[in-house]
Structures are given as structure tokens and as C-alpha cells.
């Protein structure tokens, strides 16, 4: 039935930042796992829930190259996210999906990749990052620019260390002015500024940009200054959703249903939407 979720078992919980947790979930039923394996592509989202509280929409933060489990990272802010954040290994939660479209990473093959993320928007970006890094030979240079308000707010700290150590990944980390700690070695400044300083070449490069609306706005301007065209910049949009399958009528921006035609769009597609509805 259309609105029936899969039961999922919590394997582990990791606290990423204050109020931000990652749950690793495994499938309870083999048929659900088979369905997920057959359908999941990076960029898609799901509705994560717990009976008695409801469902919330977040991306699948794990890559399409690792489909034995689902990871989701979310900020604790309401009924559902608070309950999910208080689960322990072994607890059963629910997942409905995967829904939506995807990042067309096979079209990115043979190109340089520039990932830019702000704060809690690293999870959707991270799904694409690992999907590409797991097939590293297919892509050229990989640059990751990631910023958060404070050092504490950076998520996936272990993975950031891992990327930093790799010589086939260029990681540019930054925190907002005032958000640094005494031993902070990386950049201090807002993402658009740091991006301009890092000056990645737009030549044969695809940019994947995720972040809060204000960051997207200024980062797009910075990318344009660097010579990127809106067709080569991909982003993922989020709106309130209930059904996830184009029926409940709330996630549309203009005529575009984020849940079905998105959540992944090029910057050119986003610019064509009525901006007042975003």
C-alpha cells in the first residue's frame, strides 16, 4: 500500500554536532532491502518515522554504492526528530522511499567535481561525495568546500579527517568568523568568500551545492564570478512534505513538485522557478 513504510532496525547512533545525530538503519525484511537496492540512487530522499509520532523528510545520507544500510543525519527540532534522536541500537523505526530524482553522477564521469556544503547540508552532499569516491577512477579532481557556523557544528568529523588525509581529494574547511576554536587550523570565513579564495577552475567541472537558502544565494554569485554556468551547478531543495509522492500538494515551487521532479535541480532550473515561492 502506498503510504506503508518499511520497518528499519537502528544499528547505531552517532552524535555529529550539538542536536545533530546520524542513525544507521538496516532492513528488517529482505524484500524491502531488495526494493531499496533496486531503486536507490544518490540524491533521493525518504520519510523517516516512528509510530505514534509521525514522519519527517530527510535525504538518504549514505551513498548509492553502499546499499546494505541507510544512514540519515538530522537536527533534533520537533516531535519526530526528537524521538528518532532518542532511539537506541535495536529499536525499530520506519522508512518510506526512496523517493524523488537523483544526481546524474554518470554524466559527471570524466569531469572535475566541486562539492560545496554549509552546516547540516553536508549529509545530502556526502551521499554524492561517497558515491563518486567509491568509484574514484571515473572522476577527475575532487574538491570539497565545507563550512559550518562553529567548529562544533561541523558534521561527519571522522570523514572530514579521512578526506583531509587523502591525496586525491582537496578539502577546504571553514567556520564562520567567531566560530573557530584556539586550535582551529583551517579557514575562518563564510563559504562564498572562502570558495572564491580557493578559486577552483570551472573548466570541465560540475559543482554540487547544498546549504541554507542564504548561503546558496551568495555561493551561486561566487560560482558565477569564478566562471561556472548555472547548468553545471547542481543543488537539492527541501520543502515540507507529507506524502513524498506528488499528491499531498504542499512541496511545489510554482508548478514544480520538489518530491517528484526534484529534489535535485540544476541552478538554472532553480532560477527558472518563481523565486517568491521558494
Amino acid at each position: 500500500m502506498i503510504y506503508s513504510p518499511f520497518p528499519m532496525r537502528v544499528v547505531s547512533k552517532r552524535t555529529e554536532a550539538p542536536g545533530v545525530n546520524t542513525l544507521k538503519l538496516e532492513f528488517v525484511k529482505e524484500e524491502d532491502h531488495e526494493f531499496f537496492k533496486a531503486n536507490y540512487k544518490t540524491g533521493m530522499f525518504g520519510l523517516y518515522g516512528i509510530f505514534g509520532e509521525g514522519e519527517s523528510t530527510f535525504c538518504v545520507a549514505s551513498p548509492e554504492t553502499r546499499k546494505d544500510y541507510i544512514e540519515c543525519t538530522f537536527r533534533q527540532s520537533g516531535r519526530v526528530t526528537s524521538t528518532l534522536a532518542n532511539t537506541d541500537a535495536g529499536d525499530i523505526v520506519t522508512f518510506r522511499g526512496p523517493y524523488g530524482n537523483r544526481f546524474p553522477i554518470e554524466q559527471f564521469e570524466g569531469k572535475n567535481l566541486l562539492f560545496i556544503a554549509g552546516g547540516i547540508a553536508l549529509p545530502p552532499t556526502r551521499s554524492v561525495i561517497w558515491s563518486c569516491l567509491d568509484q574514484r577512477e571515473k572522476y577527475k579532481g575532487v574538491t570539497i568546500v565545507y563550512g559550518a557556523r562553529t567548529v562544533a557544528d561541523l558534521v561527519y568529523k571522522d570523514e572530514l579527517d579521512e578526506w583531509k588525509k587523502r591525496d586525491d581529494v582537496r578539502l577546504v574547511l571553514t567556520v564562520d568568523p567567531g566560530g573557530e576554536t584556539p586550535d582551529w587550523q583551517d579557514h575562518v570565513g563564510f563559504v562564498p568568500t572562502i570558495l572564491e579564495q580557493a578559486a577552483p577552475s570551472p573548466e570541465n567541472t560540475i559543482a554540487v551545492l547544498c546549504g541554507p537558502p542564504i548561503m546558496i544565494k551568495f555561493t551561486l554569485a561566487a560560482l558565477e564570478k569564478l566562471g561556472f554556468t548555472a547548468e553545471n551547478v547542481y543543488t537539492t531543495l527541501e520543502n515540507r512534505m507529507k506524502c513524498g509522492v506528488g499528491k499531498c500538494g504542499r512541496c511545489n515551487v510554482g508548478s514544480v513538485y520538489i518530491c517528484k521532479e526534484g529534489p535535485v535541480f540544476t541552478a538554472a532550473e532553480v532560477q527558472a522557478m518563481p523565486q517568491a515561492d521558494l
Partner: protein
Amino acid sequence: MTRILLRNKLDDCIAAWQKAGFSVLAPVKRHEMSSFGEVRKADEMALDLVLTERTIKDQFFPQTEPLIKYKIGKHQIDSETMTPPEKKRVFFGVRPCDASGLAIDDPLFGWDYKDDYWFGRRENSVIVTIACSQADDFCMCTSVKLSPDSTKGADVMLRPLSDGSGWQVEAMSDRGTALVETISSLLQESSAEAAPVPQVAEKFDVEKVMEWLADKENFESQFWKDIALRCVGCGSCTFLCPTCHCFDIQDEGDTYQGIRRKNWDSCSFALFTMHTSGHNPRNTQSTRWRQRIMHKFNYYQGKFGVNSCTGCGRCTRQCPVDMGITETLQAITNLPR
């Protein structure tokens, strides 16, 4: 010569359908608002209404629909998916506008993901439309290119005879043919004429409206702010609309058990699009009213090739501040170009 069904055969008709395993639903005045309800006798039907205050949509997409029943135990949660009732139903005396509403919503509930709750009911239902013999000041079907005798969405079409004694019967689909078959012994051949279709004046120029809405320049027009000033955001127009389909999914229950439900929701409400962060893409009543009009006369057309309005006029008829779609579309029609 056409086949006709006489009014005085209605009781036999109901009995025949019941015998064939159907429940019969017709317009009834049982509650504060007239609606569709199950009938066992012809005199329970309120066939003289211009149209029921509540739409037939309620019977396919109920105000609240249980999806999943759950029980929360100490160590585990049990859940059970609920399915729509499988009862076969005949809807007798549906107005052409309401029947078209069902046909308009079919593609929405079916695109890629099929809503089992909607189609489960659709597939077990037969729609017997009765062409209108009267209209009121709010009717506007002709303005949206439908008519008081439109057969859209009908499995069986009944056209009132001019002497009021019954209806001409025409099957419009296989399902309709099969239904007519079950009452064939009650029908008779007759040359009695059908009553003239009532005149419903065109209230706005839908082509002009669609053209104005399609112009991106107008999305942020002052027009929206002015026209929606008196909207109180009560959502009545959406709940009484035969095509409005927005819903919410909520868990309702106590600490130990409950039901996940699909409940009607409305684009008129501020919370409808509110993000957890507090950001709200449609944060004023005017942006919400714009969404409603754009959805019906621009977005839906682009997605499914049809406008999401049947011209039933309920949005205007029941609006507490006398607003409704008609006035907005009239105003758009009359805007200087």
C-alpha cells in the same frame, strides 16, 4: 426511441442494485449539510437539490482515512496496514460537475504512485450522473468549459424528461453498461423528450485567465495582495471543492496505540508549508490564495492537461467572506491588458 427510467421505478431500481451486491448512495439531507449517503428507499433521496453542499469527493477521499493501525509495546511496535473498503457502490444522482471532479483527480492520484485508497474506491464504484435541470447564481460550469449535461466522469448518464416523470438512460462506459444491464427489466423504450438544459451564464473568460496566469510577470503582481485581503484562511473552499486533494498524514492516538491517518489539509493554512526551521515559502494569505488559483488554472493544466475546477461554485456559495474563485477569475478577466 431511447430507454427511460421512470421515477416510480426507483425503489425497484435500488432493490435490483442491492441484489447485485451494490450499496446505493444518493444526495441526502440528513445532517446540517446535504451530502451523499447510503439510501434504501427512493424517498430518502434529495434529487431536487441543485447540488449537495458537500461534494462526492468525500466518498472517495474521506475527510479522515485510516492508513495504519499501530500498537506500541514495551519491546516492539506492531503495525497493521489498513485497506479501503471493498464494497461495490452505485452513486445515483451525481451532478455533472461532481462527476468531472473525480475524473479530474484521477491522474493526480495515479501519476507514478497509485493511491490505493482513492483507486480502491474508484474501481468499486459506478457513477450515475443526472444532468442538471436547474442552476443557481453560483453555478459556473460553462465558464470552465463543462456544461450542465456534461458526461465527463459518468458511467451512466441520465437526462431528465421534460415532464419530470423520469430520465433518459445512456451507458457511458463498460461499467455503466453492466450496471444498466442489472435494471434492464425496469427500463422502457420511449420517445419522451429530455428537458432543456438550464442556461448557465459564462462568468469569466477562462482562456484570458489562463493566459494572464501563465505570464511570469504577474506572479508577484499587486493584484494578489488586493484580491486576497479579505480571505480569512478558513479553508472552507478547499474542503468543499470537488477537486481539492491536499492532505496531511498524522499519527493520532495515545501512548500505547493509535492510527496513522490521511486527513484533509488545505493550502489556505499557514502551517501547510511551514518548514521546521520556521521558514515558510507561502507565508501570507495572498501567497496562499495565489497558490490555489495558480494550482487550479495553471500548474494542474501543465501537469495533467486539464484545469482543476469543475465550476460547481461551492467555493463562492459557502465562503464566509463572499470571496471564492469566481470573483478572482472575473477580476483577472477584467484586468486591463
